[in-house]
């Protein structure tokens, strides 16, 4: 299987009054057989990057390689058209050809490649069996359900045995239940076929469950690349921290005094201390403004006499079955925490919250406004 190498890719769009950088020097490597996720809010450049890999868009600079094959190189002034790349792609809208049957849709890329008819039929049947759409081969896409269309699109992409498999938010048009089933299916399938895969999504749950590694993107740049665990436990900045995890990490404005060993965070009338290993960026020193970050699952309800507990007021809650998400305010800051399902808070009630210093982060970045 192939290794995808993206080096310093940039792309900007000229609007009438200004130039917008969709990608600003993006580099990443996708290992052979890896399931790689591009994650970010809409407009972060993840789809532009995917389209550049596919050959549907032309970057301004940089290089894209599949093993030693150069797909795009601004320096060498070389670019391969999509059909010279042997890359398969699944689109958000599925993009099935409405005037062809399911079988014709799946066979289309093979037909274009002039593959022998018997072989085409064999591969279409194999693909249809693999994705459990053997019973709808004669139907037109309009007659299919969303989930079936999705599987036809995947079958069409996979029958040609591509060197690279790209997916652009393929699950976002499915309802919640089907999405989780298909997610599972996709993961198993990718694992079995071992095709190097790049998957674009704005849904961090999808990213965390599917990805071997994830690249979190914002404003055309990669903020962090890592395994789901790394992103969760060692976020490099407040953006990654607040983008990964539901509900998102709590961020409270603080002034921090940081030395080699620890950071003292002044928040309202309190001072809390965290290890300097949890300060981002690492190695920051001195007195700085920033944010204290703590995940909702690391906050706990406690009694009033618990040492250093925060007295907060409940403003709302969501009961989601196995747990209850509690929203509260403390000294003008909104705090979210996860309590167990037996908790029945009432709005306006006073609650006491405890936490341990190990789970605290300190993000030094004046520019960030947490959402």
């Amino acid at each position, binding site marked *: 299987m192939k290794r995808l190498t993206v080096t310093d890719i940039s792309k900007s769009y000229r609007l009438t009054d200004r130039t917008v950088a969709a990608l600003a020097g993006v580099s990443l490597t996708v290992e052979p057989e890896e399931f790689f996720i591009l994650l970010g809010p809409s407009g972060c450049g993840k789809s532009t990057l995917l389209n550049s890999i596919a*050959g549907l868009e032309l970057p301004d600079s940089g290089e894209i390689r599949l093993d030693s094959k150069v797909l795009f190189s601004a320096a060498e002034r070389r670019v391969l058209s999509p059909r010279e790349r042997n890359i398969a*792609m699944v689109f958000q809208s599925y993009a099935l*050809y409405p005037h062809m049957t399911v079988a014709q849709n799946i066979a289309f890329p093979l037909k274009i490649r002039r593959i022998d008819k018997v072989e085409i039929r064999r591969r279409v049947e194999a693909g249809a069996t693999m994705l459990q759409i053997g019973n709808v081969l004669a139907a037109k896409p309009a007659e299919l359900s969303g989930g079936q269309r999705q599987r036809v699109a995947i079958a069409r992409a996979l029958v040609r045995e591509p060197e690279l498999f790209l997916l652009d938010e393929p699950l976002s048009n499915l309802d919640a239940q089907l999405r989780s089933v298909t997610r599972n299916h996709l993961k198993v399938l990718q694992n079995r076929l071992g095709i190097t895969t790049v998957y674009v999504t704005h849904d961090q749950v999808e990213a965390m469950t599917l990805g071997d590694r994830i690249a979190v993107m914002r404003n055309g740049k990669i903020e962090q690349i890592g395994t789901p665990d790394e992103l969760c436990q060692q976020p490099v900045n407040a953006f990654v921290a607040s983008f990964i995890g539901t509900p998102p990490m709590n961020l409270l404005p603080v002034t921090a005094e940081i030395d080699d060993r620890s950071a003292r965070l002044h928040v309202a009338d309190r001072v809390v201390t965290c290890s300097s290993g949890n300060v981002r960026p690492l190695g920051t020193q001195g007195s700085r403004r920033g944010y204290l970050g703590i995940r909702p699952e690391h906050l706990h309800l406690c009694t009033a006499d618990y040492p250093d507990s925060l007295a907060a007021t409940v403003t709302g809650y969501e009961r989601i079955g196995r747990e209850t998400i509690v929203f509260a305010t403390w000294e003008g800051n909104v705090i979210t925490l996860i309590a167990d399902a037996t908790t029945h808070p009432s709005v306006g009630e006073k609650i006491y919250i405890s936490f341990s210093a190990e789970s605290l982060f300190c993000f030094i970045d004046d520019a960030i406004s947490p959402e």
Partner: protein
Amino acid sequence: MFVLSTAGERRLQRLLYAAGFCGALFFLLAPVIFMLLTALSQRPDFLGNNYVMTTRHFREILTTPSLHFVRYCINSLAISIASAGITTIIASGGAYVATRFPFKGRTAVLLMILSLSMFPQICIAGYLYRIIAAAGMVNTWLGLILPYIAWIMPLTFWILISYFSQIPQELDRAAFIDGCSPLRTLVTIVFPLAAPGLFSTLLLAFIFTFNEFMFALILTNDHAARTVPVGIALFQGLHGELPWGVIMAASVITTLPVILMALLFQRHIMQGLTRGAIKG
């Protein structure tokens, strides 16, 4: 506040609707009826109390060689089909590029093409004659086909743009990924999906050119290339009188196919016209 109308009022309402409808219908159909009656009359100059029906004029027009009516029909069909066909092919290529590949000044080009369709035909009539004459194509099929292509191009182009822009671009992208060249994408993906649009465009272009009068009048001299509308207008009797029966019979024969086509494909035609009107 609503006042519910009584049963009597509602009956009156329906009556007025019906009366209005019949009036409008009569107004629109009267010329057609007049045409039919004249064509079928024994004495077309004196439509009156002692009306006698005959098919004489129809037989006359189809069998009298000196009238050249059959030849006019052949000219008209050949010229219209060729113009409509060629225009649709060229316009579909242009519309594909205009909807798929953004280029600098795209809007300006599109608006310029649109503005060309606003040009009054008479403005260019004189010069068009000089060009066609200089090319030695007066009174030939080609001498009409070429101006017709230019004349209906803006319309067909705009209608096709609105059809093409409704085909999702992700299909094109999927086709590229699946290994198609742009041309192959146009032929295997866009054309089949735009088939109803192509068909209605073809139909409209045909009807427009089939009915065209002025260019045909200027650019033809005789039956070698003269089309039906001009032919009918220039019918003359032996002694310079207007042979109304023959004229009307010819009109009926040429109107019927167009009316039938319009009725048969009215949905396509309406769609084509309104799409062209609204833009895509």
